[in-house]
């Protein structure tokens, strides 16, 4: 079980919760299960999402494994200059 921390702009889709518990071992599984539970999140994910696992930010790699007990944050995807 992973406790996913949501950034403020995602909380409205989860009834205002700052974090939610999800059973997932990869980023792909995590995002899929979140959308199953909160379908409106899909739009945000489409606009761009990144996942921070133990402080390391993954913008693209959906196959990335999430270790049990990891600190997981969902963040907006960041552009650069």
């Amino acid at each position, binding site marked *: 079980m992973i406790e996913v921390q949501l950034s403020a702009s995602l909380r409205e889709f989860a009834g205002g919760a700052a974090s939610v518990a999800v059973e997932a071992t990869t980023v792909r599984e995590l995002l899929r299960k979140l959308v199953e539970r909160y379908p409106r999140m899909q739009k945000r994910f489409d606009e761009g999402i990144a996942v921070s696992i133990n402080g390391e930010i993954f*913008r693209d790699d959906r196959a990335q494994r999430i270790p049990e007990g990891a600190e997981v944050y969902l963040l907006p995807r*960041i552009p650069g200059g």
Partner: protein
Amino acid sequence: MNHDQSFTNQEFKIVGTRPPRPDGVDKVTGRARYGADVSAPGQLVGLILRSPHAHAKIKKIDTSKAEKLPGVKAVITSADLPDLTKGDRSQLDILENCMARGRALYDGHAVAAVAAVDAETARKALKLIKVDYQVLPHVTDVDEAMKPGAPIVQPHVRTVGVNPAPTKASNVSQRTEFGHGDVEAGFKRADVIVERSYKTEQTHQGYIEPHACLASVGPDGQGELWVTTQGHFTFRNVCASLLGMDVAKLKVTSSEIGGGFGGKTHVWMEPVALALSRKANRPVKVVMTREEVFRATGPTCSTSIDVKIGATKDGRITAARAELRYQDGAFPSIWGMLGAMTSFACYDLENVKAIGYDVLVNRPKVAAYRAPSAPMAAFAVESTIDQVAVQIGMDPVDFRIKNAAKEGTRASYGPTYGPIGIGPTLLAAKNHPHMKAPLHKNQGRGMACGFWFNFGGQTCTDLNIGVDGTVSLTVGTVDVGGSRASLSLIAAEELGIPYEKVKCTVADTASLGHNDTTEGSRGTFSSGMATIYAARDAIRVLKERAAKQWEIDVADVTWRNGRAVALKAEHGNLSELTLEELAAASPRTGGPIAGHNEVVADGAGVSFATHICDVEVDPETGYTKVIRYTVIQDAGKAIHPDYVEGQFQGAAAQGIGWALNEEYVYGKDGRLQNPGFLDYRIPVCSDLPFIDTQILEIPNPGHPYGVRGVGETSIVPPLAAIANAVSNAAGVRLTHIPMSPPRILNAIKNGNGKSHAA
């Protein structure tokens, strides 16, 4: 120039040296070909007609006279760019920015375009296009745009991120919030609280090469685009999608790029050029004028920011809060959110809250500009930090050291940091000789820190070995600042061969798989990673070939110093095989030898910098001269230190220009008044001192060599470092960027309300 490698734990033979860049000779002889430097047989000149109004309804466009002018081969409007976006609003926004659809949203917004046999004819044709405008009320200031009753820029926009979801249109496209803890409780524990408001004006990346492209589309739906861009693969995908072309049938070649800094990550007139070519069935070259670049490409945001920071007398920050209002131009984006995310990232804070607003105004669509959104937030936060330090009587460096984020700190934007470089850069600043340099009358010193995320992304690299053992390294990330040299160094390091044996080329979109745009300081980071893996892939093949030649098990072969070596004593009589020998034998051992890699380069690792700056202010005129400047930044690992220093110096210089003189000036009519290098004042050579650099190397665990992106972070601290220096020199706190002479003189004369310490 100081290059501190004490944090590095890897041994390198070639990486870290400073050989000449492979594109050097072409660039000093005028041979290098940039966006406007190629021509095609039968090529037409494309020009774009732009709105003179900040906000207007386009009632009618009459192109008939222009079409009849001899020599005119195509005239297009938005009718020639139908909406194929299937309800994807962000894609439609891109299309609408390229060509107005029924309404002009800013001064300079494209409304029509022509292609003609020469520039003179095209110019005449533009004058023959009649546009019937109904001028609408406009708004260009971020604070004004948020007020009730302000002219609405995008009627379909509802503010995202507020509860309950609004039903009425607003210029605030998004509200975001980051942070943790209880800031109100934190402020109650503070001995000192500083609360202040700041403004920054809009600036442009100011690359010297205007946007330019040569487009060619045939009636068979195949096309080619030669273009100055930071990301030709992204341009291909976007242009193909907007024009209804197949991605594989549009070949995009990136020219040498004359600067981008984020401004060439977005398409502007490229879809228009392709549409003109499609209509005329001839190649069309479109080259922007400097005025068009300023009016109609993507500068960065102007902002308005409130910061409140509380601390105890012993120097511990108890709470920090910021409200950041960023204007995104006429189309929704996330720049305010990014400002909120980066604002307090340098510090270890128990209670922190940052609220970002993205606001629409009648100005050009904002694009990325080097560490986008971070410099303005850092200006406001770092200025406030200095004032708190003064109030509690602590040295600003010591105050920052005491509160700096470190490994294990929970970042203000959420996650917990791994190993990071903010502490080491601050310690290096504290011990830097610059801190002890004497200051004279009217001079002041300032310092500030900066943070940027960096990122990696999709990358794809080919490494082909020629019959003579030389190496063609083919990458898909555009070289904006010397990455071909860095990537050649990496390939040479992995293969164990001299740098001179590697030739690195940026491939067109038909020659390599997709590569994300060179942005987010990813060029050397991600293509470096892919190059390492591609070289290791080639080494695997080389070992197989050696095993074949020797007729031994491949497990008994290793690669050492550019040679295949047979392990085990039983193979003792086998002499090593060089890369040249293996390459020469390759036709008979299985054919060409190559290594490939496709990777999503994640794990870019965040980056920090600390800058120190001395200025002298003329108290009678407000004129400011930067007299000493030092950049200290963590590079993870500097592959080619010359070009790492170059990034630090260039970013600092852009920050200096932004801090002192650069700004978009809009008139009451909503038109840009200074769309040229005469009155948009970027620093000239005589404005700047030598910019000293110190490279720190705190290896990034997310990269095989420990590399962190280095391109962006050093534009973050200068606004604040210079504001702190000017405030110390002038004796009054400056809160409005740029600190132009009229603003400084006004602050000196009128005291700017409060003393600078308050």
